[in-house]
């Protein structure tokens, strides 16, 4: 009898929920039952409230159980032995779970399914079909990406194909592909999940980018807060070299491409592409003025494609299935799918990939199930620390780049953080300014000084000191930061601040200080 194959996610979220201990306990249970098991440390399926979610391979497909606590291991293992038998924690066939069934998984097609350490498994699940198609006719790669409508998934939403075309047309002795894996936004974890759960898709995407623009070297800049992702990418790159998909003859072709992981050092601003390039060059991560664009003068002054993990990880499926297949999903100018990350105070948090166009309300209430605290949802921050807070009144906003922009928000990297009614929005506005002041690279004045003045001004408003005057100072300051900052850190910090102020003005009323005029007189 062949070994029983059991999947215990090795994704950091699962590990943080105890998956390593569960994997050890499964081994012990198997030894006690004298059963031979093969434990695969897969990525996470993204049903994070069910982590650690274990799966066993049966004749009827994979059967999942979760969330498995150490005390459940013996009984879950017994159920697994009974061909995926009944158990209080039995979820059944994962694909049949409504949370997964409602999704359209293109970028995340393999995440949680394959063994992230196995190039063979990646290929068995459709990996490298995109690259092989690209190799047969390298010229139209960029056309295909452009026609697919793929836009930068890091947040800026710039058309990926146009970026690539600019680099392809640039004349230089060396060009680079840089992957921005500095996923610093709170509420986002899709990059991490891809790197830990399906690292080869990123390698394939970067290789296709290299072939398309004529670059032979790529860097993946991963934040230091992601040790599991760093290990997973390094392992995958080594297997890629051994397997001939990286190196001097990519997949036996005449193209050369190799990758290197570089580790960040805890600076949020390095998620901004030009600061990231400076950091890669070994400098302080300071933002560069544009122009020149990185596509013309990027890493070490050479033409550089710099893309987010999700953008690059979406390239293989576009090349495999064609631009038309991809662009048929989505709405308006937001084509394809977006891996949305449901986080914070939600019953059902996790990764939900779906075509653009789903409304914020559907995501928060229907998919996310509302707050796990059982209290009403008060505010939802979309797009990370630089994203706007949305009240329930705006829950009809469809999830796409333009619709969010029209409501003074942004989708950013697709993170949604839900807060219940215990949140104090003035405190959140203050935090946004404070975060900006700590993380500012210091290069431009609106961000460096404005954020500090912003904290002080919010403090005065909360205390009721010259309230009206300070409200107009804050509004003016946000305006200056928005239009005067060099990059999105200073430029977008006004989004959380102003949205909190606009949608939740009651939270900015003085709390412990009685009436404001009295204090104004005392000032």
């Amino acid at each position, binding site marked *: 009898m062949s070994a029983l194959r059991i999947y215990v996610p090795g994704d*950091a979220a699962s590990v943080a929920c105890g998956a390593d201990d569960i994997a050890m306990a499964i081994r012990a249970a198997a030894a006690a039952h004298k059963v031979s098991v093969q434990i695969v440390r897969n990525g996470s399926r993204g049903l994070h409230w069910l982590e650690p979610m274990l799966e066993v391979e049966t004749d009827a497909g994979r059967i999942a159980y979760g969330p498995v606590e150490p005390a459940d291991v013996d009984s879950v293992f017994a159920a697994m032995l009974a061909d995926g038998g009944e158990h209080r924690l039995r979820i059944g066939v994962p694909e049949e779970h409504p949370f997964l069934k409602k999704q359209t998984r293109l970028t995340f097609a393999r995440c949680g399914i394959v063994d992230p350490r196995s190039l063979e498994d990646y290929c068995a699940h459709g990996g490298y079909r995109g690259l092989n198609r690209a190799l047969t006719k390298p010229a139209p790669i960029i056309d295909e990406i452009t026609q697919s409508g793929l836009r930068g998934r890091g947040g800026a939403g710039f058309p990926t194909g146009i970026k690539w075309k600019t680099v392809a047309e640039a004349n230089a002795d060396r060009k680079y592909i840089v992957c921005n894996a500095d996923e*610093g936004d709170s509420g986002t974890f899709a990059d991490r999940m891809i790197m830990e759960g399906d690292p080869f898709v990123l390698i394939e995407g970067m290789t296709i980018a290299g072939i398309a623009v004529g670059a032979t070297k790529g860097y993946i800049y991963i934040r230091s807060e992601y040790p599991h992702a760093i290990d997973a990418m390094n392992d995958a790159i080594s297997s890629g070299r051994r397997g001939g998909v990286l190196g001097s003859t990519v997949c036996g072709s005449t193209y050369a491409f190799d990758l290197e992981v570089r580790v960040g050092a805890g600076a949020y601003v390095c998620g901004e592409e030009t600061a990231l390039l400076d950091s890669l060059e070994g400098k*302080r991560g300071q933002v560069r003025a544009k122009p020149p664009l990185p596509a013309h003068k990027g890493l070490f002054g050479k033409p550089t494609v710099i893309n987010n993990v999700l953008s690059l990880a979406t390239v293989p499926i576009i090349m495999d299935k064609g631009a038309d297949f991809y662009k048929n999903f989505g709405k308006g100018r937001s084509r394809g799918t977006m891996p949305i990350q449901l986080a914070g105070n939600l019953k059902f948090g996790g*990764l939900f990939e779906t075509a653009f166009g789903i409304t914020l309300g559907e995501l928060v209430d229907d998919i996310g199930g509302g707050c796990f605290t059982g209290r009403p949802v008060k505010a939802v921050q979309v797009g990370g620390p630089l994203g706007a807070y949305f009240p329930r009144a705006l829950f009809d906003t469809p999830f796409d780049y333009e619709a969010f922009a029209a409501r003074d928000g942004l989708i950013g990297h697709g993170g949604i953080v839900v807060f219940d009614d215990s949140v104090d929005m003035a405190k959140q506005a203050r935090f946004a300014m404070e975060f900006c002041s700590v993380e500012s690279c210091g290069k431009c004045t609106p961000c460096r000084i404005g954020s500090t003045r912003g904290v002080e001004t919010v403090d005065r408003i909360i205390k009721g000191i010259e309230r009206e005057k300070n409200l107009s100072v804050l509004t003016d300051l946000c305006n200056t930061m928005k239009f005067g900052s060099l990059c999105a850190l200073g430029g977008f910090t006004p989004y959380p601040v102003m949205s909190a102020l606009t949608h939740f003005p009651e939270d900015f009323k003085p709390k412990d200080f009685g009436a404001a005029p009295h204090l104004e007189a005392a000032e």
Partner: protein
Amino acid sequence: MQTKISGWDANLATEVIAGHKDRDGAMLPILHGLQEVFGYIPEPAVPMVAEVLNVSRAEVHGVVTFYHDFREAPAGRHVLKICRAEACQATGCDALAARAEEKLGLKFGETSADGRVTLEPIYCLGLCSVSPSAMIDGRVVARLDEKKLDALIEETAR
């Protein structure tokens, strides 16, 4: 994951620097390497890095002080990092952070006088769907509550 930390050793520093110096943009890999070996960036290493990379000491100092990760003094034997970012705020990390400060008798960013533990904030471990989260000596912990936090604090006593 407590790594073995070495006391200052110029030869060891030279070795670490030499191991990375030929990489393009070698500064960060060198500094990460030094911190891995010594637990921080020892001051005498700064001119050594400057010379090898042909940059000024000020430039190296500038890089060391720019990034939150690089320490100019050794951390405690245990490092407890609690995520303070929005997704963890939404699930109550502020109260847990205050509890950690109180129980350890430390403010964020401080190391205990006996060099046992350092308490630090971290801005996002990417565990936002299973928040609040923390990291102790490199190990990630999700769904942090008072009981789990107290266990982590107890761990730092060892």
